[in-house]
């Protein structure tokens, strides 16, 4: 990879570019446990990126945080960030409106190895807002649908209200994605519907619902640490997918995003540059020193 993929001049590593917010869209309302999630549509300025990469987003006056890009690269003229108001900067971001400008430094990180997955069946396992980085890959796959085999999505959230991208799910289904949903706690209404197929329980309970050929499947995961841990166990032990083909993306606190500040270190890896995408074989090696989940 060249230095150009950093989207910055080598001499101006820490300088963000100014990007306008084109549209702000509510995704999930605020709940008792979690802040609201909104989608921020940004100008793209011809920037190229890979699914699974992230950017350092500056909210002027507040600070800079790493946020994954949740739209596919093939979506012509925009970039979408799906952000939960959780910390100081993300809450400040939620105060911004259409037309405001933010600082954008990226794309950063390695991204998903989509090129080496052609011809495989793809299994997506997502938990909560972890669907955001996976949506970038999922929709990119749909743009190149004929290059891949089956596409399955197992998606779990705390409650039906916490499910992300509910408007997109029927569209994905029409494009041939086999979707399975789960919630930890149902609301009495959600469980009664049957399309897409659903269960009350954690996302790993959906593993028994799917039949797939482990020899030709690649699994992609993103979610809270505890979910990644048990989903990886389930994928390898119950679904017999080889560890090298279980691919997860990690989340860590970062200040620089370019391998300098040292905040995102896990075992001997820097999540910002060596990751954030790792396969289970790498993660297990890291886990022998420090658990990445």
């Amino acid at each position, binding site marked *: 990879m060249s230095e150009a993929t950093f989207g910055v001049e080598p001499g101006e590593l820490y300088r963000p570019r100014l990007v306008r917010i084109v549209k702000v869209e509510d995704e999930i309302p605020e709940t008792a446990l979690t802040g609201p999630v909104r989608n921020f549509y940004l100008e793209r300025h011809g920037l190229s990126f890979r699914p699974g990469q992230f950017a350092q987003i500056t909210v002027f*006056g507040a600070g800079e945080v790493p946020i994954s890009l949740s739209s596919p690269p093939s979506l012509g003229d925009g970039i979408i960030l799906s952000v939960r108001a*959780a910390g100081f900067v993300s809450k400040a971001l939620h105060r911004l409106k259409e037309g405001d400008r933010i600082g954008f430094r990226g794309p950063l990180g390695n991204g998903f190895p989509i090129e080496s997955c052609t011809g495989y069946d793809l299994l997506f396992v997502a938990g909560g807002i972890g669907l955001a980085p996976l949506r970038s890959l999922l929709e990119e796959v749909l743009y190149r649908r004929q290059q891949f085999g089956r596409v399955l999505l197992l998606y779990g959230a705390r409650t039906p209200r916490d499910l992300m991208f509910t408007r997109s799910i029927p569209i994905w289904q029409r494009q041939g994605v086999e979707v399975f949903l789960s919630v930890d706690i149902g609301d009495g209404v959600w469980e009664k519907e049957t399309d897409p197929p659903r269960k009350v329980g954690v996302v790993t309970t959906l593993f028994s619902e799917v039949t797939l050929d482990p020899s030709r499947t690649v699994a992609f995961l993103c979610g809270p640490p505890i979910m990644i841990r048990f989903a990886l166990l389930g994928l390898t032990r119950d679904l017999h997918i080889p560890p090298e083909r279980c691919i997860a993306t990690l989340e860590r606190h970062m*200040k620089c995003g370019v391998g*300098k500040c040292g*905040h995102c270190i896990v075992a001997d890896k820097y999540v910002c540059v060596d990751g954030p995408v790792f396969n289970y074989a790498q993660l297990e090696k890291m886990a022998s020193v420090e658990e990445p989940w």
Partner: protein
Amino acid sequence: MTEQVNMWISRTNLMEILTRWSQDGMLIAPKRAGGEVFFAPIDNVEEICWDYVNSLISPKQFLLPEGETLLSYERTDEGEWVINTPNLDVPEKIVFGIRSCDVAGIAYLDQFLLGRMFDRKIPPDPLYKRRRERLTLISVVCQKPGSTCMCVCCDGGPALKAGYDWQLTELSEGWLVEVGTEKGWALMETVKALVEPAETEAVTEKEERLAKVIENFQHYSPHHRVPTMAASRGVSRSLVKEPFWDLIGARCVECGGCSYLCPTCFCFNCVDLLTDPDGSTGQEEPFCPLAPGQGAGTCYKRVRFRDNCILEGFVRQAGGIYPRRNTGERCRNRFFHKLSWQFFQRMHRLGCTGCGRCVKTCLGEIGMSQVATEITDALTSGRKVALTGQRVGKGEAHV
């Protein structure tokens, strides 16, 4: 001119050279203040402290200064933001009297901050790179190691083979100068009337003196290299389990002194500070949220400060995900980074250069060499706390 020739300077000529540099305002050298030695700009060569083991703070402070501005942004009359990056023009400086352990530390910072340790090509840190290009390292070989020094155990001295621009060794008559870089040779050109090629006897004398210095190490002789490496092996293979780190962590008071003084620690935190637009008052306020009525001319600076992996907030994330919650886990992370083979492979050396500053500053006696010794003791004595990971009772608190 890159042939391996050693040079020789007489004492008076060295003072002459130092005087010249100090008059040009380029000289940084050890200076005594309040009972401690610090590296500081020198106006008068009389101020230079010659009788010191090492400075309290590592000379990395000239490459990674505290509170360095990464960028600033200002609100225009139209309500837009304008981003300015700082002027990277820093003056040329010469650090005289830096010790080998700190030279090795700077070589370690180069490996990381210039992006060489990654498989992918990573752009270097522009501010560090600029300062590094403008800093000349003139190291002086230690002849009287301190009680906490352990450079002999981790390839950090007392003399080095590379990394310095000049390496000076004091001999009975004058100084031997070894030149390590092109930059060092260029500097040599500017003072060539005052130096001459060294006789072979001078080199022999240096070797003899060096052998004597190594013998004089008080606590950590070269024989301790084996325990250091054993500790490294134990950490790399995860033979040292959580209960051991819990006990180490229990002794950590989270003062952050170890990494503040460490010559190889580089982690930083960034903060956006509200500043006076013309910078006249220099008043700065942290964490001022984006207030609605913020008018034109509002100016912020993004400043980086040193951060420390031992501190609680280092890895805390928004949304409640919080790795390394206890001090033991944070200590494990720190010692893994410094001692492990995994990082040795990426950085081409241990993360410790043996300067002993952490040993001196730590209140809980968990400096690098102390922990390395404890790891080795625990592993060799086969204590179950280290090997099996079984928790032990309070009575066995001292491993």
